């Protein structure tokens, strides 16, 4: 029990108080729980290593197979291209949604309604049928002779249809993320820029969006990771040279589906791990001028980092 004797103030102010050496609080149950978890994990790993169904030999053989690594590269390219298009389109849609112009606002709303309201798999199937629905694309004034006619099949192969399908769907989600970021910026920023005579677009571009980036980047990192995995749906187009599609092809040829699923998973895990590190550095870059907002270390959790100290008055 602690005594109730009042703590006497030191006579001399110059005299330093003794550094506190308290006994640390113990957490015995944590240790017990850790041991249980580790044991369970070890059991699972030992069992998996010996279980023939996993086909570890086949796994090792195909992990760096040239077809697989080429497919992994394709998956990366698909991810990067669709994300780049999605981010640009998403920013445009978000800015449009917040525009004072009701027509522009309505267009953005309609886009979001359609592309968020239908499954990405269904959208990808539709894009695959694009050339069937629109055999030719004509340029010119409606109801007159076209200036130029393009055969859809000639310039849109399945790869680009997959990119378009993924990008247009993702843009709808990016738009919501960007909109949330823009709305998080203090209203005073907008006012200060307006009072300086900056136009609405200038205010957005130079003042609001750069500040919104701090809020936008963590969830965008999640979207990139999510996109990397969504690319496995491009079989719906059908594009089959991505990581998942290619490993299915290989496993169909050698009649061993499980080891190739593991191969694909290993590559997906490698890429997502790299993306997490990249996200850490991006977050650091965009927390400029806001002291405490920096994440302390790369987080392996995909949950967005909460950003503190967003008020400009700090």
């Amino acid at each position, binding site marked *: 029990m602690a005594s109730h004797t009042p703590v006497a103030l030191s006579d001399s102010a110059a005299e330093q108080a003794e550094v506190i050496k308290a006994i640390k609080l113990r957490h015995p149950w944590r240790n017990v729980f850790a041991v249980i978890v580790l044991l369970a994990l070890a059991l699972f790993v030992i069992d998996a290593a010996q279980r023939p169904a996993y086909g570890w030999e086949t796994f090792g053989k195909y992990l760096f197979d040239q077809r697989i690594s080429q497919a992994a590269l394709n998956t990366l390219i698909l991810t990067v291209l669709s994300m780049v298009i999605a981010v640009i389109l998403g920013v445009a849609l978000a800015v449009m949604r917040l525009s004072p112009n009701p027509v522009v606002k309505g267009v953005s709303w309609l886009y979001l309604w359609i592309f968020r309201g239908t499954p990405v798999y269904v959208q990808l199937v539709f894009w695959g049928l694009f050339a069937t629905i629109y055999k030719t694309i004509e340029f010119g004034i409606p109801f007159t002779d076209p200036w130029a006619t393009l055969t859809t099949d000639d310039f849109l192969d399945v790869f680009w249809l997959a990119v378009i399908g993924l990008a247009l769907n993702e843009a709808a989600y990016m738009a919501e993320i960007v909109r949330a970021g823009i709305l998080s910026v203090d209203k005073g920023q907008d006012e200060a820029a307006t*009072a300086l005579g900056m*136009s609405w677009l200038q205010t957005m571009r130079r003042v609001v969006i750069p500040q919104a980036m701090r809020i936008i980047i963590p969830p965008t990192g999640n979207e990139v990771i999510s996109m990397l995995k969504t690319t496995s749906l491009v079989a719906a187009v059908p594009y089959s040279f991505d990581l998942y599609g290619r490993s299915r092809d290989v496993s169909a040829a050698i009649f061993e589906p499980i080891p190739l699923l593991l191969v694909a998973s290993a590559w997906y895990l490698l890429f997502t791990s790299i993306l997490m590190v990249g996200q850490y550095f991006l977050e650091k870059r965009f927390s400029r001028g806001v002291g405490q907002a920096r994440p302390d270390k790369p987080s392996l959790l995909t949950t967005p980092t909460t950003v503190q100290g967003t008020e400009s008055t700090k």
Partner: protein
Amino acid sequence: MTDVPMVLADRVSKSFGSNHVLRSISLEVPRGEVLCLVGPSGSGKSTFLRCINHLERVDAGRLAVDGTLVGYEERGGKLYELRPKVAAKQRSDIGMVFQKFNLFPHMTALENIIEAPTLVRGISKSKALARGKELLDRVGLANKAGSYPAHLSGGQQQRVAIARALAMDPKLMLFDEPTSALDPELVGEVLDVMKGLAESGMTMIVVTHEMGFAREVADSVVFMDDGVVVESGRPDDVLTNPQHARTKAFLSKVL
């Protein structure tokens, strides 16, 4: 032309829904003079200031800056809303300083200052930088050019904000409670800058609770309460010898 007052308000009214914030405000600020708006919070001082800069739209009456109607254009007896570009041009000639500074946190002090001159006025970056440094020197922060707002004290941030507004070479400066968010010991440095500005002949409208500043610097003081001008006149008259009971009650609390 010089006879035209810098700010002329003629029976200006403004309401937010059923809340009548401004009720028939008429006042005049001659060129080169300093007007202090005082009064309890919620009396409409800030709203009036924001109307001058067209951050809020006036519902009734006429408000003109330098002889030009704010936010509207009058042609053939009809009022037309201004195009955003023209409204922005009007605002760019009026400097505004906010209670919460509203510096751009992702830009350094100097970048904050040169942003609008380069973007809105199209001044070359090198010219804007030279002018920006000069302005920072004027507000006593020449050594803080590369600092981000988060690393400046409130008083320093507000002085940068004043320099940022001055960089647009405004003909009128509006101050919306510029020292209310500051620690008491930092108020003086901001008031000193404002005093210097007033001495240089800048036309200023200052919403403030600093009666000492109003007494010393203002050419006229307007006391507002509940959306109306209760009393106005020379600072000595209004602040030392108020005629109206409401003014007396207010001053007895703040002095």
